[in-house]
């Protein structure tokens, strides 16, 4: 039996029957050379990609699990499904009308079409592994902007994809990067040509829907000289009992004088291991901004990284993490100053409640020769009760003397005096607590796109 039996049946179904689909066929559990080959075959990939996948699989078997961070021993690689697709999702829908109703309903519940209509320049949404909906406003398309599903981009722009694919995050980086390279599927390809400045944010919503499924979307963003863009990604998964794995990869290439902002809110369900890799390589006078909200997942290990490669490059990292019951949020920013006059700012706020554990694990590295660089890093933790924990583990490696580094880390409990002050003004204990927590993360939430700020506020409402 082929690993991907859905392909056969879906090709026999007419478009009409797509209107009320209930049944999803899934790929087989477990990882093997056959599964990897089947994924590649099903996508009709070029040989180099098939070979690349197999190399990655070898690496995956060789590289051990990370020696730090939360316990991953319950993660059983043989119990996961590495590629799945709703059977009715035949290929690729460009018009909203063509998207099947069940998928539409999901998106509508998430407010995606409204957001797309009103604010966004284009929207892509990954329903399991195949993109259900991907569209870019015509104006930007005419200016040479490419905003596509990654699988499609590989078909339409093979050379461009090959030039960047896993060049920012090499598969030998860590076990999950290798796994990702072997089984990646879908994701976003965004290419902004020289000098094109996209004012409105581009958005994609990733969603994991099949039980015990891995999601391994790969995104490549290239912002050419003097161009600018803002890309928003939201991720979520409904609740299932079986364990899921999300090991996506985001590679961003910020060319000289270009500017990129990448915003994401990750709200996977509790049984998800969110082990995602995000990295930006920033060239001369380029600016990279990361805005992250991490709310969901049982175990998260996520350390967005900026490599400041060119003189005068800049990176800003803003992040909020909330660890609730049964959650470990092991998050942090990595910044590597590899050129002179580079600047970075890191602002991280984490909250732990109801027994949750929030760990800030950051790296700030200044290489020899990165003269006159400036870095400021601030990570604050707020612990809401006695069962919860918060830690900060920042690492500083400074190999250049002529630099300015400011670093501050705090972990504190909610203050009784603050609560009393607010309650004495008529607010209930819950309202007072929510107000203090909102205030704590406000500097980061202010940087979030409006719809996510609203979502974030709703999610942290205690």
């Amino acid at each position, binding site marked *: 039996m082929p690993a991907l039996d859905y392909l056969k049946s879906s090709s026999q179904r007419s478009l009409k029957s797509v209107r009320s689909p209930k049944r999803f066929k899934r790929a087989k559990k477990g990882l093997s050379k056959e599964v990897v080959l089947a994924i590649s075959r099903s996508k009709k990939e070029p040989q180099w990609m098939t070979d690349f996948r197999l190399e990655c699989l070898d690496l995956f078997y060789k590289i051990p699990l990370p020696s730090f961070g939360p316990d991953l021993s319950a993660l059983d690689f043989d119990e996961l499904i590495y590629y799945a697709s709703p059977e009715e999702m035949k290929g690729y829908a460009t018009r909203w009308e063509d998207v099947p109703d069940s998928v539409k309903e999901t998106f509508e519940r998430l407010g995606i079409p409204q957001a797309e209509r009103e604010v966004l320049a284009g929207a892509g949404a990954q329903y399991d592994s195949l993109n259900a909906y991907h569209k870019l406003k015509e104006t930007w398309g005419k200016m040479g902007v490419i905003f596509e599903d990654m699988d499609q981009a590989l078909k339409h722009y093979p050379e461009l994809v090959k030039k960047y694919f896993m060049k920012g995050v090499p598969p030998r980086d860590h076990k999950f990067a290798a796994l990702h390279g072997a089984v990646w599927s879908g994701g976003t390809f965004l290419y902004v040509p020289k000098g094109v400045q996209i004012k409105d944010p581009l958005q994609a919503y990733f969603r994991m829907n099949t039980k015990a499924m891995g999601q391994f979307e790969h995104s490549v963003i290239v912002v050419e000289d003097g161009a600018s863009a803002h890309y928003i990604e939201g991720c979520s998964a409904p609740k299932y009992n079986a364990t899921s794995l999300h090991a996506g990869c985001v590679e961003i290439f910020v060319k000289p004088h270009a500017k990129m902002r990448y915003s994401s809110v990750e709200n996977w369900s509790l049984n998800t291991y969110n082990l995602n890799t995000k990295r930006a390589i920033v060239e001369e006078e380029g600016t990279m901004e990361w805005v992250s909200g991490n709310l969901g997942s049982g175990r998260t290990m996520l350390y967005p990284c900026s490599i400041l490669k060119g003189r005068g490059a800049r990176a800003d990292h803003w992040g909020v993490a909330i660890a609730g019951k049964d959650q470990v949020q092991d998050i942090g920013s990595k910044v590597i100053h590899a050129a002179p006059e580079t600047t970075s700012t890191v602002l991280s706020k984490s909250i732990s409640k109801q027994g949750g554990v929030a760990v800030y694990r950051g790296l700030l590295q200044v290489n020899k020769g990165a003269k006159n660089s400036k870095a400021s890093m601030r990570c604050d933790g707020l612990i809401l009760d006695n069962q919860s924990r918060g830690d900060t583990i920042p690492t500083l490696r400074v190999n250049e003397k002529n630099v300015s580094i400011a670093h501050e880390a705090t972990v504190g409990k909610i*203050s*009784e*005096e*603050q609560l*009393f*002050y*607010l*309650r*004495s*003004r*008529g*607010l*209930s*204990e819950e*309202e007072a607590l929510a*107000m*203090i927590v*909102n*205030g*704590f*993360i*406000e*500097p980061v939430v202010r940087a979030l796109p409006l719809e996510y700020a609203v979502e974030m506020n709703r999610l942290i409402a205690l």
Partner: protein
Amino acid sequence: MRKVLLAIKGLHARVQNQEILHGLDLEIRSGEFHVLMGPNGSGKSTLSSVLMGHTSYEVSAGAVQWEGKNLLKMKPEERARAGLFLSFQHPREIPGVNLVSFLKSSYNAVKKLNMSLFHFKKLLTDKMSVAGMPLGFMNRYLNVGFSGGEKKKCEILQMVLLEPKLAILDEPDSGMDLDAVKDICRVIKALRNPKQSFLLITHNPRILDCVLPDYVHLMVEGKIVKSGGVELAKRIEKEGYVNFMKAKGLKIL
């Protein structure tokens, strides 16, 4: 006879197993202006915290009635909604919370309204001018980076906004320059009406030059040892707490 608003009888209270209030009696009626004086450590701030319902203080004996109801059974927010207000000696900083959004939540909670931000801003603009607070503070984080005087002014603004039945002012004049004290006097004077009561805790009899109190109380070692009119404050000012108490045969700590 005016209605009794607050009646404290034989109040004992402790914090971390140390008793601070040792049987305090005080009655405040609607529209009255009371001043509470006393040396440092006599328990004045403890009294205000206990009245507002701070959870760190434990009431071990005595009773406090608010309009005939048991105040001690009410949560701090219920006391606020019932018309009790405390101007803190050391107001807390709440980072990330705008003054305007905080005050809107507070106002709506106390007044049991659901006023929109738009209408509230209009109201607040008026109240800020009454309290002498520059409008620029509206979008600042609550008390964050405020000077001592600005924090006190912000407390006064909250009193003006919430229109409590009884305002306890815990040393609103401490750490403020003369002009700022005058400003506070002006606001308090403007607020005085037959329904509005005050309990002013102060060391500074000068504030009494512009606000004429109905009663002055001297508090020593957790109870009120002497009550009188404004002349009591004058004598305390002239003689100092220690001499005054010696002359009166009162025990000193």
